[in-house]
């Protein structure tokens, strides 16, 4: 297990505009851009980390949150080691959609044991004063859905961003040490578009 390459794939999911790209930028380059483009498709960045003495390459996958890009992003859920479900605390709809994001992920990533899969929930934009989602609401949702860790972050002023990623890594490593956790071995399959997935944005 120690000789295994520690390439950890962490994927950011959540409605368009909640700040996924901003969080990734803050974490990797420590920068914030107030005028960011919507992401199209999927992009990723690598970051070398040392967590609890483990040398780890964290591969952070940023996805397009907008509904119309679904077909571009879903093929790349597969192989994720951790999923960061993101909403914006000033956008209640994005919070309400969390459940849909989780379902979409579990379906397309083809996770065999969804109960055991490490999700981390991020409530972004805590710097904003007009909140629509309270901390309690969010914590409760995490509690009910599988006892996910919850972090309130701000990509703008860097609050909790690094902490959240550290937690994600720790979760994955912990899981790997416990079980020979494996994600199914077959390759990506095309043309699997379930009708059931609900809309996230509109």
């Amino acid at each position, binding site marked *: 297990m120690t000789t295994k390459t520690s390439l950890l794939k962490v994927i950011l999911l959540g409605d368009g505009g909640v700040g996924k790209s901003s969080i990734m930028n803050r974490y990797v380059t420590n920068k914030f851009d107030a005028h960011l483009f919507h992401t*199209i498709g999927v992009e990723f960045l690598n970051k070398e980390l040392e967590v609890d003495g483990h040398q780890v390459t964290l591969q952070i996958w940023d996805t397009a949150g907008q509904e119309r890009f679904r077909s571009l992003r879903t*093929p790349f859920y597969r192989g994720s080691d951790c999923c960061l479900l993101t909403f914006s605390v000033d956008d209640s709809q994005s919070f309400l959609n969390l459940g849909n994001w989780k379902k979409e992920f579990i379906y397309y990533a083809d996770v065999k044991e969804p109960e055991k899969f490490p999700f981390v929930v991020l409530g972004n934009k805590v710097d904003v004063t007009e909140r629509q989602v309270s901390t309690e609401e969010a914590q409760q949702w995490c509690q009910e859905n599988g006892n996910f860790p919850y972090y309130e972050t701000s990509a703008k002023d860097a609050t909790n961003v690094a902490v959240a990623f550290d937690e994600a890594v720790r979760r994955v490593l912990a899981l790997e040490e416990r079980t020979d956790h494996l994600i199914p071995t077959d390759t990506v399959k095309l043309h699997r578009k379930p009708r059931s997935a609900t809309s996230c944005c509109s």
Partner: protein
Amino acid sequence: MVHVYNCHPFASQQIVQVEQEPGLVCCGGGALFVVATGGCKVEAYNVEQEGCPFICRFATMGTVKSIQHSKMGDYLVTIEEKNSATYLRAYTNWRHQAEGKARVGVRLLGHLLRGASVRGGVQMEIIEIPLSKRPVAVACCPVTGDLLVGCEDTLVLFALRRQNQQSLNQSQQILQSTSQNSSQNQAQSPSPNQNFLDFERSVILHLPKIEPKQVALCGGYVAVQMELEVLVLKLDASSDPKTQEESSDTKKTDHIDDQADFMVLPRHQELLGDVAKDCDIPVSIENTGLEDGKGQYTLSYVLFRRFTPDFFQGCSVEETQLHSLQLYPLYTSNQSVPLEEPACVFCFFSLPNAGYLYSLKGGVELLSTYQYPEKVLKAVLTDHLLHVITKSALQCFTVRCAAVAARIVDPYIDTTMKACPPCSMEVCALRIQLFIGLRSVCVDGSHVILLSVADTETPEEPERTPQRRRLKLKEHTLLTGIFLAVGIDPATTPALESFLSRPFLGRKWTISSPKETSPAGHGWNLYVVDSVSPLTLYQEMVEYSERYAETNPQAQSLRHLLSEAHLFLRASLLRTEPSEQPRNIEGEAAETLQTDTDAPAERQTAAQTDRQEVEEALRHNCAQLGDCFSRGSQKDCHLALPYYRMSGLSVTEVMARNRPLPSSPHTYGPGFLFYLKHFLFEETEQTLSQEAADDVIDIFSQSEPSQLVSVCASPSMINLSPAKTLQILIHQEDTCGVSVLLTITMATMMLCLDDLPQYTQLMERHAEMLLVYRFIEEPRLLLHGGVGGRHTHIRPTRLTRQLAKSQPGLLVAAMVALHENSKVQLEQADHIFKELGCENCLQVDFWEAMLMASSQEAVIQELLFRLVSIYIDRLTNTTSDTHLNEPHTPSRRRPLKSADDLINSCSHYGALYPWLTVLNPAHTTSSQHQEALYKLQSLLCGPSLSVGSVVPLMERLSEETLWGFSLHLLCSTRRGQYDRSIEKLLDRCPQAIIAYANHQLQDTHMILWWQKLLPELCNRTRAASDNSILLAALKETLVVVAMEMSPTDFLELIPDDGTASYFLPYLLTCSQRHLMA
């Protein structure tokens, strides 16, 4: 036996500064890609620059199991694993990942819809290629950049698509209009050099029975290598979709039934071309291309090869495993790369102990088999060399690709014009360069990249000097072992002994690693070994060859080495011209990124001078090969000729190269004599200096005296010194006896010496007829030039000129004989007579003589026409007066044949009609004029001349003179115009009418006597009753008519106003004759 030469194909070696131990290595487009062991990171280094600087680093999405670079499109393709799933991915725009920090776009194939890359400039992009089966092997087509993926029982072909900038912009606009926060989208215009790539799945080949290990793709050729088999297929795009029936399946079952009793395992098998269908691997094709349904492919079998482990040779199953499958294209310099298909495609694959190189285009053929001296791990084929690695050495073998290509480029190879070493020539090892613990090899251009990982048990010695010595010693024993393994005992071969005693890191081997410390630091090393230019290697081989030449110029090795050198040069000539073009297309991304773009014009001229240098070297090499073949044995000696020709050396230079040393007993080789004879007998346009010509005479008097006559007759030899040659010829006559040809040649020498009496004496030694026969044998005694073809001008020799003066009859006879034996054409003969200044005399004699001799109808008609025209010329240019002042024909002598001679001896000249004698004046004209008149009349009276064709010519003659009239009358008579002729004759010369009528009005024309002549005469006598000539004619006519007609008919004819008494006697004769009958 494998030739091993200790050449130095490598110039220098650099050690790439890699931090982590490399796991996988690949290269292409001037870059080296290193994947750290077990890592998910690719590092790129620039191999074109000193020290191989780091270019960039980028992360992969999983653990890389296999990596390949495609020159076309400058992309990388990987097979990766992540959490036990296998993925196939293509990495494009990797050069833009300078920081390793930029975001990397990821998408599925076909979803070309980029965000950041289109908006904010260039972005590296990963294209995920979904597959239904696990990918095992991939290959990129060096021609198109297409991708072939080998899965467990299928091969999938993906076509590379380069996205059109415009269509991309359009899709971008659609994207923007629907974008929510479009206010932000002040889209920057995308970089024009952006490499937008995509792939389109075009064909799937189902091969249910195989387990591919490696695949290769080149042009339409698809190769797949299993553990012990190689199958090469050809895919052809076709418009009409053919149903591919799997005939091989049904056939195969029969096959098995046949063999069921014996349980024969298929042993070594080689099936070439269509026959490869019979291998037991059924292939079915599934077209998946979407484009207009056009992407239909048909499939054909090209090659199948199967090996079985040979246990008796001490091989284990594991050792009999194929590797290093490669399809290799070769363009020729006249091709516009890469728009056209490559001229040649080669297929290489290797067993641990032997490699096989096939040529696929224009008939599949095994070119070379490489017998390795020890177990080979991997092999890479390049234009010039086959690089193979064993655990402890990099070995370079020569290849025959250039020999194949040369023959495709130039149809004149393997003629007397051009030559090239044969494709089948044995290959050899040029170099065995020692390395420790080699693991992998790859090649990019002139850079050979090696990964070595030292065995842990090999201890590294800290001090350098003793290590060197130890190494050398180690090399020696190792190499000796290798030679023994291939059946050569170095101890018995002095050349090898000395070769082995030489230090391996020779003078040309420089180590320029920036840090000497690195090899000691860890157990592995990544080397970039730079090859020397083909020209440098060529020069080294030439140096070697000189050493061989000194010791044993006849040696096969010398010839072999020079031939190898020749192919080296050819290979680089094949490549030099187009090499500039593909760079621009292949490495466009590279080009735009690199700031040090030197001016293209400069590069162009540099390439040109390079080419000139190589061409110069090739000429030099051809000269040396020429030498080899000129001195060698009878076998292949004819090759001296094309090689010398290609060398551009003059004959004199070639002769100088072949001149034996005064001391040596060495004589002229058969190849040299072959060359020289060819030069003397075929190439008529180059004359030798007197010195050279005399040398040639010496050479032949020594080596082939029987050729002396032909040699002397060569137009190239006209400068020879006649006195010296005469001596040699006399000597020749003394030893071999008199021969007519020798005599003629000697006479020619006398002519050159201006010794006319001697000349005459010699010429009189043999009968003219014998001389004529010899002239047929050696026409060049009379004619120079024009023999090989009509493009060279034909001209008379000195002898010809002399004959024209002293023996014109002989000359004419000889020319006729030459013509009849197809040694000279009519026009050429004309030219000769023109040169001799005898157009109007000897030439006409020639034509007349030709008429006698020739049996070719076309020639006869041509000659008849010419002669008619010349006779008319003569008639018009001479006057019929005896005292003449003729400007045109200064005829010094009489024609060889008189009109009488011709009438008597030549069937085309007819006897003159009797009535002509009445018309021809006896003594009023000059003899010349008269001869011409008689000859022309005779031709008109003859059977062969078609009178109609000469009528236009006749118009030049006036009818005023009686002879002129006679010719016109002859013409109209011959054309059957009797009525008019009778009238005219009665007008001009009635005294000839009865002679005319007697001769011409016979048989069917008999009726003209009474239908035309009689009424004419009656009319004319009525008008001029005192004309005695007409009356006499009338009487004669009546006699004839009375003889021929019945009395009643005769009565009818008598004119109404006629005096009965006048006609009565004839009527009486008529009735009496009628009664008797």
